[in-house]
């Protein structure tokens, strides 16, 4: 099982997968070329979702298709510093689609 974690530091946003850096251009910068972000829905969060899903699924096209669902269910809700596991990712991908309202 992998653990993904992220933090906003004075030197920039950092994301790890099992202690190793997860890079924003994992799978190509197709959603954003400005790096990762989270806590809302936008290019940075979508790029983060894409990079995590590629690492988790090992399938770029499936990862790309699942980005909106994973952003809505997880990335847009992540706190300032966060940690999620492979099991958490699976739970989000297998959960019913949300239709809840967010600011």
């Amino acid at each position, binding site marked *: 099982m992998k653990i993904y974690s992220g933090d906003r530091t*004075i030197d*920039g946003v950092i994301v790890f997968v099992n202690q190793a850096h997860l890079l924003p251009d994992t799978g190509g910068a197709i959603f954003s070329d400005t790096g990762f972000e989270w*806590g809302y829905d936008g290019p*940075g969060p979508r790029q983060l979702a894409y990079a995590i899903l590629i690492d988790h699924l090992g399938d770029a096209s499936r990862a790309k298709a699942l980005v909106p669902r994973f952003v809505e269910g997880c990335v847009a809700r992540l706190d*300032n510093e966060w940690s999620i596991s492979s099991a*958490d990712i699976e739970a989000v991908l297998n959960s019913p689609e949300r239709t809840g309202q967010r*600011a």
Partner: protein
Amino acid sequence: MELVNTIMGQRQRKYREMYRERVSGWYNGWLHVMIIYLAGSSALYIYGANTVNVQWWEWLALPFGFISYQASEYILHMYVMHRPRKNVVLRALYIRHTLMHHQFFTKEEMRFADHKDWRVTFFPPFTMLGLTLLSIIPSLAAGIVISENVGWLLMAALTASYMFYELIHFCCHIDDNWLVRNMPLINTARRHHTAHHDHALMMRVNMGIGTALPDWLMGTSDLDRGFWGHLFNGYDESHVRPGLQKSFNAAGTRPVPNRQAAERN
């Protein structure tokens, strides 16, 4: 120097220590503020001295300019200061704000320890010059198309609105006291801005600092209130939208409602 009576966590404490280590030793918050307000006051004097026989309708340039600045500040905050951009200047604003200001101050500890911490809150002194240059374009246009007085008054309103913004933001990060707790607009801004510093919400809600009204208008407020409620809410937490504070709960993949919302429900 650090606050003694505080509930801040270790992460915030370490961040503040690190930030202070990197701030130039010669930085003086009082000098920083003096430059901003001396420059602003001088500019306001010059703009005012150039108006002649102002007609009643020309005064409308003041509220128009004031509101325009506050709206611009909301847009800048929402779409630049909390969103990484490719442009070097815009990215610097994001780093300074999301990666510095919001790590230095959290909803648990919003206060400065001393004047050296003001650096992480006030815009740099050259901002006034930049704002003045930006203000010249619409003001010159208004001066040519409408009247010279409107042009000067628009310049004055934009400058004053920036100074107002800095004052309000400063008041959001000082210790609680009778004055800020009871001063209309300031007490509303303090609660509104503290909620914005909640890490679970900061990327999405309460982007207006000088006033909460842009958030009310754009639906990005944490309050479920109308115009007047947003203007004079004060410290009241009873109108906070339930279920707003939803951060990812790794254990159950379900949103975690904040305690107040849970208690209400």
